[in-house]
């Protein structure tokens, strides 16, 4: 797990203190995508070679739908109950910010 946080922290520090040029950002994006594709293909290979998981894909789909539905419901409910409190004083700041961005 340490490797995960070290890699992330290194990236955040680079991104914050040495903002990349357009070309640099493109190269970084390519490497990020390459890493992601390798990891996704590896996850796919492990799934494909595991007959037990392949047999349970239908059940995994149902579990995914339940977890996604519950996550979304939790997020929506909490924001719904707090919306008036969050909006108080915020509209003035937002219109001020929009005005600055428009200039």
């Amino acid at each position: 797990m340490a490797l995960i946080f070290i890699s992330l922290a290194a990236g955040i520090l680079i991104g914050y203190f040495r903002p990349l040029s357009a070309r640099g950002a493109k190269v970084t994006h390519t490497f990020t995508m390459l890493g992601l594709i390798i990891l996704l293909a590896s996850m796919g290979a492990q799934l494909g070679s595991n007959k037990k998981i392949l047999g349970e894909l239908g059940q995994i789909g149902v579990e995914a739908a339940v977890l996604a539905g519950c996550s979304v419901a939790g997020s929506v409910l909490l924001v719904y109950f707090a919306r008036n409190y969050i909006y108080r004083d915020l509209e003035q700041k937002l219109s001020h910010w929009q005005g600055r961005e428009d200039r």
Partner: protein
Amino acid sequence: MTFIVVGAILAGALFGYWILPAGMLGYLDQATSLALCIMLVGVGIDLGSQRQTWLRLRALGWKILLVPVLVAVGSLAGAVAGGTFLGMPFNESSAIGAGFGWYSLSGVLIAKIYSVETGALAFLTNVSRELLAFVLIPVLAAKFGNLVAVSPGGATTMDTTLPLIAKATDADTTVIAVVNGTILSSLVPFLVPVLIHL
């Protein structure tokens, strides 16, 4: 992007099903560890360079942080409640909920550091969350107000669901959606590994 993600998984699955001998899987470990590091440095660079968003956050005041905090807490609580109903352990359901819709990162992280089965579930759950968000955003904006429409998208409100939020709500809510998505995206690579190891 969606085609690349689905294509990579399908290509890997076909390779694993027909070609790859079971004993060879162990050799993938070093290659995937390197790929994970490269990907996370790239994700970090992207997060670190979001200066404009952090400036917006400062200008709008810290109260705006309540939106991503409530989305995160609601998402985790909902996933744990759903996981309990399904008989899942707390660490798995909470880590899956902490994907906040970022299906590619949460799926591969959990598959790599915990188990490929839970990784696949995290992937499918967070794909479903994004699909649900696409359906719910216009409905929630019309029935319950603009701010509530930001909540189902989770981390995706800074990219994939942002155009829909912009269309269904207003410019002010779009600014909040960018801040919300950026903060939740920043939390995913930290929360998922911590929660899965609880």
